[in-house]
């Protein structure tokens, strides 16, 4: 990392983006297009990670990291699998009602871990499917088939069923016990779920479902920043990875004279401010060391460090400012904030490279590290291997910062525009 200071921001970002992209080449099953949730041996596929993979392939093509033919072939294998796999109500099917189980066996593509039919993870998969559909626009047999299969996958999803009789969408369903009995509460990553659900040509969500969901929003003044509160940073990234929210506003944002892009910018500043204040005196936290979100952690344990009892978590949704916070930082989330607050993200990236070089292997950022918990170097504990969600969001957000590729592709997707309009968005590029 010594040569870092000589590298331009663009060179630096290219290296990290390329390295993150590599995850999807390494963890891909060519038989069915599935991509592993994480790099640890034996990990199942995550459908959300597959959605990120499908969105990353166009980035790979545009950056010259793979050929268009290779990207199309990988995409097609994936879409064929999701079109043809079992949607029966069986406990080991691949999905149900057009949605898919959260985790699938990498080889067989069948449900594992008794996971739920996940609405948000299906949405992230679908975002990737629609990104591919928008990108592969050539009149060739393979690209025609990509678009046809993408349409078929979308049309099959029964969004109305996903409400389970309630006003808003549930979080999931299991064949053993039915719907998970709670829904979404407060601002979270589900905007894209509602947008795509509202735009469905076959089983659309009613408009009032979006109103019902946004009724749980909290507009807060924290550290003198006014924003739509959500604690974990990833919530301010996931829908925004595909949809350019700059200048478009729903009813809530019109009322607050803001938009979701600006909101993500403020959320980034609040993360930095929290880290500067560092109320629990975690090692490393400062203006360039922030990124508190959902990620891997050291595991559930209590340890006395420097005379202070510390309680660590495993994989958990950490948040700012209410917690939980165990001193674990996600450097990938910092880069995912790049389009919103590049001045903060780039400064933090350079700090990570300078202060914690040992956690960066071949330009790959780990899911998380915790300098408070002693390890082999200043980074302290470092998450083993890599997670597809972290690598995927980095690839997409760096690309949106560099070229706006994903945002532009999704602007072309008619479903995104109609879903946004049905949700009440107006202004900006929707005009």
């Amino acid at each position: 990392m010594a040569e870092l200071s000589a590298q331009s921001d663009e060179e630096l970002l290219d290296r990290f983006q390329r390295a993150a992209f590599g995850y999807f080449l390494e963890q891909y099953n060519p038989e069915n297009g599935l991509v592993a949730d994480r790099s640890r041996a034996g990990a199942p596929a995550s459908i959300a990670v597959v959605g990120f993979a499908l969105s990353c392939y166009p980035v790979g093509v545009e950056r010259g990291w793979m050929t268009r033919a290779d990207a199309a072939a990988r995409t097609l294998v994936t879409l064929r699998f999701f079109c043809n796999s079992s949607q029966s109500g069986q406990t080991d099917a691949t999905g149900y009602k057009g949605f898919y189980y959260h985790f699938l066996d990498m080889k067989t593509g069948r449900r594992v871990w008794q996971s739920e039919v996940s609405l948000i993870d299906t949405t992230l998969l679908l975002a990737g499917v629609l990104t591919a559909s928008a990108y592969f626009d050539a009149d060739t047999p393979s690209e025609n088939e990509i678009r046809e299969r993408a349409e078929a996958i979308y049309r099959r999803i029964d969004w109305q069923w996903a409400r389970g009789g309630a006003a808003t969408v549930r979080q999931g369903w299991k064949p053993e016990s039915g719907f998970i009995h709670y829904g979404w509460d407060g601002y979270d990553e589900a905007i894209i779920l509602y947008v795509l659900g509202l735009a469905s040509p076959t089983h659309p969500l009613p408009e009032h479902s979006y109103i019902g969901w946004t009724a749980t929003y909290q507009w807060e003044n924290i550290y003198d920043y006014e924003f739509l509160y959500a604690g974990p940073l990833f919530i301010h990234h996931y829908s925004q990875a595909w949809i350019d929210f700059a200048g478009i506003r729903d009813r809530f944002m019109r009322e607050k004279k803001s938009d979701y892009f600006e909101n993500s910018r403020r959320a980034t500043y609040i993360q930095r401010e929290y880290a500067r204040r560092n109320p629990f005196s975690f090692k490393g936290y400062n203006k360039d060391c922030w990124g508190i979100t959902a990620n891997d952690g050291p595991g559930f344990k209590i340890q006395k460090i420097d005379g202070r009892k510390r309680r660590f978590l495993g994989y958990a949704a950490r948040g700012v400012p209410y917690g939980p916070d165990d001193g674990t930082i996600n450097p990938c989330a910092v880069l995912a904030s790049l389009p919103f607050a590049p001045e903060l993200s780039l400064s933090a990236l350079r700090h990570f490279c300078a202060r914690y070089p040992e956690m960066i292997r071949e330009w790959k950022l780990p899911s998380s590290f915790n300098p408070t918990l002693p390890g082999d170097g200043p980074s302290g504990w470092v998450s083993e291997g890599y997670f597809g969600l972290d690598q995927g969001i980095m690839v997409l957000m760096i690309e949106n910062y560099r070229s706006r590729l994903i945002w532009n592709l999704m602007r072309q997707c008619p479903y995104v525009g109609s879903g946004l309009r049905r949700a009440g968005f107006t202004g900006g590029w929707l005009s």
Partner: protein
Amino acid sequence: MTNSSLQQEPATRNGQSPPSAPPDDRFHRALLHDVHPAAWRNPKFAGKYNLIVIGAGPGGITAAREAAALGAKVALIERNFIGGDRLNVGCVPSKAIIRTARLYAEMRNADSVGAQVPGRIGIGFATVMERMQRIQARLSRADSAQRLSEAGVDVYFGEARFAGSDTVEVAGDKLRFRKALIATGARPLTPPIPGLAKAGYLTNENVFNLTECPRRLLVIGGGPLGCELAQAFCRFGSHVIIAQDDPTFLPKEERDAAQVLSDALARDGVEIHLNTTVVGVRLDGTRKIVDLVCAGNTFSVSVDEILAGIGRMPIVEGMNLESAGVRYDTKTGIHINDFLQTSNRRIYAAGDVCLEYKFTHVAEASAHIAVRNALFLGRKRLSALTIPWCTYTDPEIAHIGLYVREAREKDIPIRTFTVLMHDVDRAVTDGEEEGFVKIHVRDGTDRILGATVVARHAGEMINGLSLAITSGIGLRALARVIHTYPTQAEAIKMAADAYNRTRLTPTLKSLTKRWLAW
């Protein structure tokens, strides 16, 4: 008529063991002497009472005392014990043991404030409970049967039963009234869980009779009672498992408050199972095997005791309300209008028997309104009350007024000013940094619509906000109020200061800059 289990009517604790009752010690005898004297003789009065109050809990006592002070001829009828849940099986005993539990937690964490952790921290559960009983006995003196009688209240012990629209029977006497007030309170809901009744379980009515701390305790329900006692028993050394049907504790509270509480319970060592339903209980010797389901996965835990804290239901049975023309149902209790009047215009109700908010201070406030309306043609409205409440976990969680979701449902634009306790100097010096103050104002104004405080002493802090809301004091005025430094309540002023800073618009800033340059 309040629901107590000091001796006469103990709730069943365990199908395999005798019902528990508090030890017959000097404190308990002193308490009984005050709340239900053995030699008590009901008064004899042939005339017509201005007011008959049924139930001598906080609402009933407030009403009887106030009416008597105003010169009314008042009767107060109690089936069991004066003081109601608050004194006997509610706030008083629970806060007494919570205080001890908090001290144990502080001893274990003494090093966090630079003190040495005592070498061995032994839990003397018997002394914890003895202190609790001593406090009950002490606090019972203020509203003893004798003291109430001296205040001009005719105290009757016995079952009250209406015998028409203006008559109540008690212990063989027929009492006539011009107005009556029903304040019989509420009792714990019985969880409809197969096998639970047979295995036996604790509620707030008998948990304070325990003489030994359960080694393993399952708490069903993550409401205020469940969370408070789960934390307290965990701090006494029990292995506490808490099963909550919802995705968060205290589902009515803001989710960030519930998150802070969840973290606090986990830090104490409570084994937390959210989104988890108890589906069955069976006995294995003296152990209770409890089956739970979470997201379709079934698992079992083995415990010594089960505490059910899933809510409370109004006490409406046995009073022959039909004969008095008083409408009610068993779920929401006695039906009242905004003036606390029942379907019999001469009969009023107050407190847990008719209100959604089942708190001592609400019972007292509603009793106050009922007395004014009943005796002086008052038109005071229940809906005019601004009601604060608090869950006495560590940290405490207090709330007043509207929640954000309620405001948004009513289409009221709302804005929240948040101050984290870790930014409050006194909270830092006290090592009590968990929590926050959130003050909700109507967007575009400084009018306070509601607030949530999560802090070690949130119950104390919310009172300042209660005063502000009730008196119509906005954030601008609060910012001008000098708060003592350093105090944790300064967080409220800091929120008001944050509001003031938002008034400094770019235009205003530009004007002030030009003024200063000149």
